[in-house]
């Protein structure tokens, strides 16, 4: 059976990067209920938090959840345990981006699309999705 790696050092890594304590999560799922992107995520926010509690980062390498998160903070303001889940999602993004991997390739965006996009969309998108 393919068991994901449980890793205490990964728990610490996520906590350090996010400034949050993922162990506080009690798995109530309020984050998922509040998330406008949950339907499109491979793992809903609650499940992402659960994997984080065991440091199972390697099992989340290929999921889209933290790329779909647009940091709208709907979850963060509602979490009954006071966890800023948007920061945990950012930590997962950063773990990938800091290995020089891009989630999107800006050069492949068609020029006619780039002409339409407002500046803040490109600044925000490239900051969140490219290294």
């Amino acid at each position, binding site marked *: 059976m393919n068991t994901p790696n449980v890793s205490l050092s990964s728990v610490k890594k996520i906590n350090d*990067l996010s400034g949050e304590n993922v162990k506080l999560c009690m798995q109530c799922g309020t984050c998922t209920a509040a998330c406008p992107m949950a339907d499109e995520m491979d793992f809903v926010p609650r499940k992402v938090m659960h994997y984080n509690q065991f440091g199972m980062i390697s099992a989340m390498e290929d999921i889209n959840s933290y790329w779909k998160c647009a940091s709208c903070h709907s979850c963060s303001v509602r979490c009954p345990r006071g966890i800023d889940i948007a*920061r945990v999602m950012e930590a997962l993004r950063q773990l990938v981006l800091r290995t020089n991997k891009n989630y999107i390739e800006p050069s492949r965006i068609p020029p006619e699309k780039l002409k339409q996009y407002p500046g803040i969309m490109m600044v925000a998108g490239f900051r969140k999705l490219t290294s």
Partner: protein
Amino acid sequence: MKISYYPGCTLKYKAKNLETAALASLEILGIDVEEMERWNCCGAVYSLTDDDLIHMVGPVRNLVRAKEQGADTIVTLCSMCYNTLARANELMKNDPEKRDTINRFMDEEIDYFGELEVHHLLSLLKDQVGWQAISEKIQTPLTDLKLASYYGCTLQRPAEVGIEPMGSFTLMNDLFQALGAEVVPFGAADKCCGSYQVICEEEGDNTAAATILQSAAASGAEALATSCPLCEFNLGKQQEALLEKDKISQKIPTLYFTQLLALALGVPAEQCHFELSDSEVSHFLENKKILVTA
């Protein structure tokens, strides 16, 4: 009180209509704002990792520029700029360790301690003018117009920079009522529009935006008002694509709150730059006799 105006990148081209309508309105209302001589990108999104201070330099440098100008208040119109500047300001006010690191990194600049007040235009209008005073200056009341006030994410979250508490939309609602419009409550006023995600999606796939538009239409709104150029793109300019993919059942004119304010105050239509909005917006306003084109 001296107010610095921070425009932000998008307001100088794609969202010029958000800016020009606001500045013309402020002049009529007698509010003196000074556009910053030098400014840089606010970063658009606030850094959320604990060790990433380098991306704070952008927004903090803008605050430093405003302080240099002798301002005690900085005002922005774009929701995303408001959010990044207000959060950077909170960080500089409340986190002595990070503040010290940032100040020492920018050693060519004067030190900054979060002393400015960061305002969005909506809260500035309420505090400095007041709805009563605005209603007294109206030339073209927005009568027979049902509006939905859309706040999006960045005007209200996180709570420490929210222009008003979560679930409350009184600033925009009160403004529109002062302008003579009818405000309809709708359930998606603070839902995320999908933000920058469109950059990696096919056109018309943005279900987050579709949910908001459907909710606004169901509430009986005839038009949707926003303060963010990214929301305006997702909710306004992408409607045709959403309609083609059957994500929404009807279009709904989407425009900036500053355009409505300006029209009500009698600002000439050309200063509201409706050519930058979805083409149906000006037709709609002409039918409502709010917009008169020569």
